[in-house]
């Protein structure tokens, strides 16, 4: 596991690791001095030493105990800071990868899965950087220190101590049973979460009622609940076995040590104080031994979380370089033709080509998409993998050529599924043509990153996505130096002047989740205002006033794309 963590390539500051390891070793090693000193104190007292004579030794015991406590607190404080730092370093990388997938990939992924990956799974991985390494060092140093100390008292104690791991075989067996049920319990939990998510939203409930399946869903949930109860009971049962076996093991060791002690003391080989010391060590060894054998469960849990995190990090469909803006994007060519399609063809990629292992397994993901990609049916992606048969090819556009000149307004008409939305996605640079060339402002979109293509294009989709934030933030997102006057101008331009006057909080109005504070038409106008605002900013930054805006509207009965330049 250590090698696996190292392979993640996180930036580790080893100078900071050293004091943590040192403090942990001190925290584990210093307590061993306490029983040794106590043995001596008892022997000295038995030989008639008074309290005053023993004060230095008692002081030393207190010093050892306090030193160990201080070292432990320090190790935990420093270790937590470094460990969680590393864990969040990994989370930041994961987030960066998840932000850079092909847009089509998101249609195969339920947003809840991404959320869980960055929260639940990362929390499962946390112990790898925090408690596990600290406990491992603390445990092994503690065991070694106890072994050495017992060896100095009498070699027979050391021999008995070596038997301890054998006695823990039962504990390990019970742990193995628990681990076998962990995986099953995760699967049940996932099934429960999936059922809740797929049945309890407004849309989902409506569907359930239309299918008259409310009672059936309740029965399905009850089935999962029964399985969960059985698993949880089995797990708690084995936990109890572990706890009892562990205690029993130590009780037996105590008896063994006492027997050895009495035997050796009666033969005059060791003092009474040494026997007491040895018995103290039985108590002292509990914590380090528990730490060494107790890491299996957290390690398996962390390993499962890390499996899923690594699957995202290693996927060819995450962390694309073609998404974020380039440091030096190609310069636009100023001519009359602002958008050109040259013999453009587009074939949907297969689901496998855009899927991300362990993320795309959950069905029904495309319901989470809004905007122009809401029109991408998952079946298209499945068809491309050969599931749809020869009569339903995944090819959507064959040979499209046209040019839009500055100032022109172009409408694209066609029946449902004819490829209007795909054409818009190609013109935005969000998807790349399978054949031919799309030129935006004279630049081949294949040479542009997605963010660079958006320098020239604004999109008003049929289903506008707004963030749950003030209206101002929605209008100025991604635009520096946007004054309120500019934003108000843009709203007027989009025909929302009257609405703005009616809003008591004006630009501070919260738009609500997905902008539901506003009607569908108003949301579209807000998106138009965003496009207008972008056109303003392009003019002010000296970019050629090309392709400032286009929008996509839907008619009452048939949809049509509209491009305004």
């Amino acid at each position, binding site marked *: 596991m250590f090698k696996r963590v190292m392979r993640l390539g996180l930036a580790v500051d080893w100078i900071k690791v050293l004091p943590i390891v040192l403090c942990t070793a001190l925290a584990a090693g210093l307590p061993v001095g306490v029983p040794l000193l106590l043995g001596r104190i008892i022997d000295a007292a038995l030989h008639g030493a008074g309290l005053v004579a023993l004060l230095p030794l008692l002081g030393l015991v207190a010093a050892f105990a306090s030193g160990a406590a201080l070292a432990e607190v320090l190790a935990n404080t420093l270790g937590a800071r470094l460990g969680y730092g590393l864990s969040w370093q990994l989370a930041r990388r994961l987030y960066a990868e998840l932000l850079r997938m092909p847009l089509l990939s998101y249609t195969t992924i339920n947003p809840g899965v991404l959320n869980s990956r960055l929260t639940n799974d990362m929390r499962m991985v946390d112990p790898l950087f925090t408690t596990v390494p600290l406990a491992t060092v603390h445990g092994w140093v503690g065991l070694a220190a106890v072994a050495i100390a017992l060896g100095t008292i009498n070699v027979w104690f050391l021999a008995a101590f070596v038997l301890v791991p054998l006695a823990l075989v039962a504990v390990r067996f019970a742990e193995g049973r628990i681990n076998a049920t962990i995986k099953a319990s995760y699967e049940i939990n996932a099934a429960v979460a999936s059922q809740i998510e797929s049945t309890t939203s407004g849309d989902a409930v409506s569907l359930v009622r239309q299918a008259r399946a409310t009672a059936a869903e309740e029965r399905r949930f009850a089935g999962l609940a029964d399985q969960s109860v059985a698993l949880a009971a089995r797990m708690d049962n084995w936990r109890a076995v572990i706890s009892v076996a562990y205690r029993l093991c130590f009780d037996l060791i105590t008896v063994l040590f006492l027997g050895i002690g009495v035997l050796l003391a009666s033969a005059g080989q060791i003092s009474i104080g040494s026997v007491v010391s040895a018995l103290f060590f039985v108590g002292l060894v509990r914590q380090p031994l528990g730490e060494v054998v107790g890491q299996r469960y957290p390690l398996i849990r962390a390993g499962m979380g890390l499996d899923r995190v690594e699957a995202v990090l290693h996927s060819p469909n995450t962390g694309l370089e073609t998404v974020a803006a380039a440091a030096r994007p190609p310069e636009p060519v100023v001519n009359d033709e602002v958008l050109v399609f040259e013999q453009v063809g587009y074939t949907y990629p297969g689901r496998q080509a855009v899927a991300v292992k362990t993320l795309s397994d959950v069905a029904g993901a495309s319901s989470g998409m809004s905007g122009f990609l809401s029109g991408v049916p998952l079946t298209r992606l499945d068809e491309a993998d050969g599931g749809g048969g020869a009569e339903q090819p995944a090819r959507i556009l064959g040979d499209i050529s046209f040019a839009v000149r500055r100032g022109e307004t172009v409408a694209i008409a066609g*029946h449902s599924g*004819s490829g209007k939305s795909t054409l818009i996605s190609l013109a935005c640079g969000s998807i790349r043509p399978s054949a031919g060339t799309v030129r935006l402002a004279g630049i081949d979109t294949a040479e542009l990153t997605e963010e660079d293509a958006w320098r020239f294009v604004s999109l008003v989709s049929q289903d506008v996505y707004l963030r749950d934030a003030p209206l101002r933030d929605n209008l100025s997102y991604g635009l520096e130096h946007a004054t309120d006057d500019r934003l108000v101008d843009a709203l007027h331009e989009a025909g929302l002047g009257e609405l703005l006057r009616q809003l008591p909080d004006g630009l501070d109005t919260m738009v609500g989740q997905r902008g539901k504070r506003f009607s569908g038409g108003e949301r579209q106008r807000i998106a138009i205002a965003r496009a207008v605002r972008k056109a303003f900013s392009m003019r002010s930054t000296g970019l050629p006033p090309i392709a400032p805006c286009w929008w996509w509207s839907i008619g009452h009965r048939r949809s049509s794309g509209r491009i305004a330049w």
Partner: protein
Amino acid sequence: MIEGGSVVEHGTHAELIAAGGRYAAMHRAGGQG
């Protein structure tokens, strides 16, 4: 107007209605509905 993955007709609304082709047919169908 796109159909079958290709541009089948192009022109202004008036031109396409006058030509009486696919666009005009779709427009009629929508208008009646």
